[in-house]
């Protein structure tokens, strides 16, 4: 067996599905901080949501001689060949935020189903268990699909809530804004809206603010801009179920290093989510 | 004589124009039949109907007495009808061989092209036609004249029984026309029926057997060439006599002031040539096709890369990096290829005409006054006799000659001091030609200097005050006044210039 390098000689690779999102940028920053502490070297790539590019990115990182790999897959199934490549190069690979198929050494991710469930439970409660609710969907990837599943379960438990519309805002502010405007137009009596992530939420917020409707909004992620927005007096946001990208990535790195050194560790570390409400928002911040 | 081809009572209506009205035409085997008429008379349209490119509204086409209906040119080819189009109809980026055999490539059992066979056949064809062109070269690299020979070769390679030649001689110089005629005579002996369209009446008398004349889309008359003469033909075509198409020669003002001197060396050559130009003179550039007249003119206005370009205009040194620079200095050029270099095809006649002097219609700047524009356009169109339903007609739907007139009209009101006309009368009918010559004389009388590049010797001898003869990219002779004679020009045009002949004697000092 080849010799394991000391911490400060390690090359750590992380492949992101995107870096055009505060969520993942935060993750990257936290990782950088941790790696700097170790004195190691960090290589980061951005797949722009393209699974084919991500596969190439991973191959190139293997070529560059990374010792451990953190993988934030664009798609759980599609990333398999990249995982296999890393595995056959003897590189321990930990999936972050979304699971990856194939011989991964471990997985660290949010409880996405729970996040969706909690968000919509809060939403249902704030609507007193009745009314019309719409869903602002996003890119069809596993974490997002899980959230919608969770949400639907929670809404199903409130007996007088009806899901009247489901549209896709592509998790982008401008699209989400237009789509929300149109949903408001189509359903003037809308009471609640569940947005699958904060990117779409910020667009929906613009649409809600300039309408006369009093729609309650539940969302997931916990990015600073939303946390700040929900502290405003008449915010429509009732809950933002926060994930912890910084915690996730640090745990993933620790897990990967343990696998690298052959130490014992669990294969899966679920990171819990925290519902943030207007009342406790002031005290919440990623990394806090 | 048996009629191989007869067109009976053919009519065709285009939006806004009755292009053909009850026109008939009969051509026998081994006959060269001239189809004559003014620009827009309907000649090309009739031929396109024959070849299945347009469908007639009424009328019958008979081949060997059998009525035929061609739905496409492909149909016509299959029956032995071939055409050399008036408009460029080759694929510029394909090689000469590929163009000739396009659509009829010989293939092997696998369906792959037999390149070697194609090349061999092309070489054989070129040998037969005395054409000296590399069959592998891409067509866009050929001169206009060579492209024309490729088109002719393409039509001949069909072994057609009926061959239409729509103004094939327009881009050719006399020696090349002679070469074409040799080919045509041989085909006549082989019994091919030919329809020949040309605005050069002397060519008609040289080669044709019979004549049919159209006017404004109607049939005027048919007769044997032997039974008519030049003036009678002109009268049949335009309904009036044209006396002496060249305006009387006036002695050039003895020492009209020098306007321009230019010494130009093209990129990739090692010599330079110089010219001088005086106010109010018409300077001819004569020479064979490819002798470099157009290139020289283009280089002069900055449209062609040069190694040396020393130009003095009115005593001041000038540099032209683009035709726009030249235009600013008052030099404009009418290019030789109207489709590629002259017309904005999607534009109307009016927009084509005013394109480079829109500034004249400011009211206030930078906004254009439509009314002024319209007035100028109408005047210009009348001056060169453009036949079009309205100034708003898209130029694309005009006949070839009328398109050429539109491009000429662009330069009438531009207020240039120097105009370069490259083959200005290409495709223009006799009647209008006379008008254009008169116009050029009038411009010269106003003090405008004109450079006329022409492959038509009568035009050069009839109009120019001074002539420069080009050969192999060099100026080999200068002729003035009485010395301007067709024979002399041709003698110089075919002489090989001596190498290392750095400068030559034709530049005159002011």
């Amino acid at each position, binding site marked *: 067996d080849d010799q394991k390098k000391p911490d400060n000689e390690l090359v750590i690779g992380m492949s992101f599905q995107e*870096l*055009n999102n505060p969520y993942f940028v935060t993750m990257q920053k936290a990782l950088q901080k941790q790696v700097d502490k170790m004195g190691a070297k960090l290589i980061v790539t951005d797949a722009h949501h393209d699974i084919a590019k991500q596969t190439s990115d991973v191959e190139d990182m293997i070529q560059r001689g990374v010792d451990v790999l953190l993988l934030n897959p664009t798609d759980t199934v599609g990333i398999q060949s990249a995982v296999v490549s890393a595995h056959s190069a003897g590189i321990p690979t930990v999936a972050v935020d979304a699971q990856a198929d194939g011989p991964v050494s471990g997985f660290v991710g949010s409880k996405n189903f729970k996040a969706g469930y909690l968000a919509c439970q809060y939403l249902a409660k704030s609507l007193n268990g009745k009314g019309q609710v719409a869903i602002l969907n996003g890119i069809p990837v596993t974490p997002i699909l899980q959230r919608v599943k969770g949400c639907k379960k929670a809404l199903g438990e409130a007996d007088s809530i009806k899901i009247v519309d489901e549209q896709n805002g592509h998790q*982008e502010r401008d699209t989400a804004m237009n789509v929300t405007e*149109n949903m408001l137009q*189509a359903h003037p009596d809308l009471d609640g809206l569940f947005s699958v992530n904060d990117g779409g939420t910020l667009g929906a917020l613009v649409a809600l603010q300039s309408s006369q409707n009093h729609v309650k909004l539940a969302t997931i992620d916990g990015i600073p801009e939303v946390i700040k927005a929900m502290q405003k007096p008449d915010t429509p946001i009732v809950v933002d179920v926060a994930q912890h990208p910084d915690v996730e990535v640090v745990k993933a790195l620790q897990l990967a290093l343990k696998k690298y050194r052959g130490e014992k560790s669990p294969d899966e570390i679920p990171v819990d989510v925290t519902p943030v409400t207007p009342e406790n928002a002031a005290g919440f911040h990623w990394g806090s | 004589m048996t009629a191989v081809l007869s067109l009976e009572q053919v009519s065709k209506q285009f939006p806004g124009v009755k292009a053909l009205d009850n026109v008939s035409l009969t051509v026998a085997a081994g006959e060269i039949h001239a189809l004559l008429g003014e620009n827009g008379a309907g000649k090309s349209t009739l031929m396109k109907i024959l070849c299945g490119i347009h469908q007639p509204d009424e009328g019958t086409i008979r081949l060997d007495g059998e009525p035929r209906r061609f739905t496409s040119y492909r149909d016509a080819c299959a029956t032995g009808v071939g055409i050399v189009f008036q408009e460029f109809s080759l694929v510029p980026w394909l090689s000469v061989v590929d163009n000739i055999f396009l659509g009829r490539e010989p293939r092997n059992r696998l369906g792959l092209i037999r390149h070697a066979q194609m090349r061999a056949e092309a070489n054989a064809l070129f040998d037969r036609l005395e054409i000296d062109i590399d069959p592998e070269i891409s067509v866009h690299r050929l001169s206009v004249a060579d492209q024309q020979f490729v088109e002719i070769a393409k039509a001949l390679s069909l072994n057609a029984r009926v061959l239409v030649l729509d103004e094939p001689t327009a881009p050719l110089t006399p020696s090349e026309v002679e070469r074409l005629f040799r080919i045509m005579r041989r085909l006549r002996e082989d019994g091919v029926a030919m329809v020949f369209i040309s605005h050069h009446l002397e060519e008609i008398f040289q080669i044709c057997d019979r004549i049919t004349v159209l006017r404004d889309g109607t049939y005027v008359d048919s007769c044997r060439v032997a039974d008519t003469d030049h003036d009678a033909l002109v009268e049949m075509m335009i309904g009036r006599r044209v006396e002496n198409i060249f305006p009387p020669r006036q002695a050039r003002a003895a020492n009209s002031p020098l306007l321009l001197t230019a010494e130009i060396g093209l990129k990739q050559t090692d010599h330079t040539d110089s010219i001088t130009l005086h106010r109010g003179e018409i300077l001819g550039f004569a020479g064979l096709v490819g002798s470099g007249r157009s290139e020289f003119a283009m280089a002069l206005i900055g449209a062609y890369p040069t190694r040396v370009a020393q130009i003095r205009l009115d005593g001041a040194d000038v540099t032209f990096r683009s035709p726009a620079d030249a235009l600013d200095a008052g030099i404009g050029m009418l290019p030789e290829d109207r489709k590629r270099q002259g017309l904005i095809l999607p534009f109307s006649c009016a927009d084509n005409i005013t*394109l480079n002097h829109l500034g004249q219609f400011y009211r206030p700047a930078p*906004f254009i006054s439509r009314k002024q524009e319209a007035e100028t356009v109408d005047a210009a169109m009348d001056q060169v006799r453009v036949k079009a339903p309205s*100034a708003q007609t898209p130029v*694309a739907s005009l006949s070839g000659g009328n398109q050429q007139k539109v491009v000429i009209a662009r330069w009438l009101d531009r207020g240039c001091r120097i105009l370069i006309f490259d083959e200005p009368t290409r495709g223009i009918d006799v009647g209008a030609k006379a008008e254009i010559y008169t116009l050029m004389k009038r411009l010269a009388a106003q003090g405008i200097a004109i450079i006329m590049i022409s492959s038509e010797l009568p035009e050069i001898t009839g109009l120019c005050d001074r002539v420069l003869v080009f050969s192999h990219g060099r100026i080999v002779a200068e002729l003035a006044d009485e010395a301007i004679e067709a024979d002399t020009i041709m003698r110089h045009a075919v002489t090989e210039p001596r190498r290392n002949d750095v400068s030559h004697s034709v530049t005159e000092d002011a």
Partner: protein
Amino acid sequence: MSDATPSAAVAAPRRQRRSRWQRLLHSPMFFPLLGFIAVFIIMSLVNDRFLDLGNIQNVIRQGSVIGIIAVGMSFAIFTGGIDLSVGPVMALSGTIMAGLMAAGWPAPVAIAAGLCLGSAFGAFNGFCVAFGRMPPIIVTLATMGAAHGLALLYTGGYPISGLPSWFSWFGRGTLAGIQLPILIMLLTYAIAYVVLHHTPFGRYVYAVGGNEEATRLTGIRVPRTKMLVYTISGLTAAIAGLVITSRLMSGQPGIGEGFELDAIAAVVLGGAAIAGGRGVVLGTLVGAMLLAMLNNGLNLMGVSSYLQDVIKGGIILLAVYIGRGRDA
């Protein structure tokens, strides 16, 4: 093949002048307009919530960003070119405005800087196309990536917020009862209309698209014209950046993906020939509004987003098929 060119108005005394109706009939935007009206009627019949003043305003406002970008795209396409970089240039200009404002610069200066940046980017495209003689599609493809990267580099991937609250006026305010994005869009079209149809430069734009070689030989400065065209495209992208940044009240570095395709669709739906030389900018407006109407109408009908793509594709095809007579 009729007079796509701006000349419809010239009268020929000796030949009859065409009536207004005939001019419209022969305009390249006639069939697009028909298509627009047809879709409008269908949408009104299918959705009872479609036809109300608020929603009409929704449609126009939602279409305004693509609409503004499509003005510059029209110029590029009329010259026979294309500008793929509009989306990222919009994003870059918007983030720069946001970034400067967030850094405390006075808003007018920040806005001016953003507009200048967009124009400069466009000018760079124009320079490569005009003087470098490179194909527009590949030049703008390259700068599209570059602008995207620059916007992300500038913000580090984060959106920029914390803009002065009055800045939201451009995206959310009204003037004389009209919403600002709509007003800005209409103004852009009005100016483009005048430039294209009433100035020499406009005529040159079409001429370059119709036959570049002939235009050059005629003595028009083709490179200068092209350079200006791409600068205009950069500028309108930056104006769109102003509107969207103000509307979202944040500088979004990654926004605008795929906008170039929507803008091209608007121009072509509006009756322009992709090969250049023909088209009218008001047709582009019709095209942009048609796209916005489709998005809005299908949303209102609650059609699933997957199905929306399919239906939208079908309707675009249909609209182009109807309008296709022009090219035939």
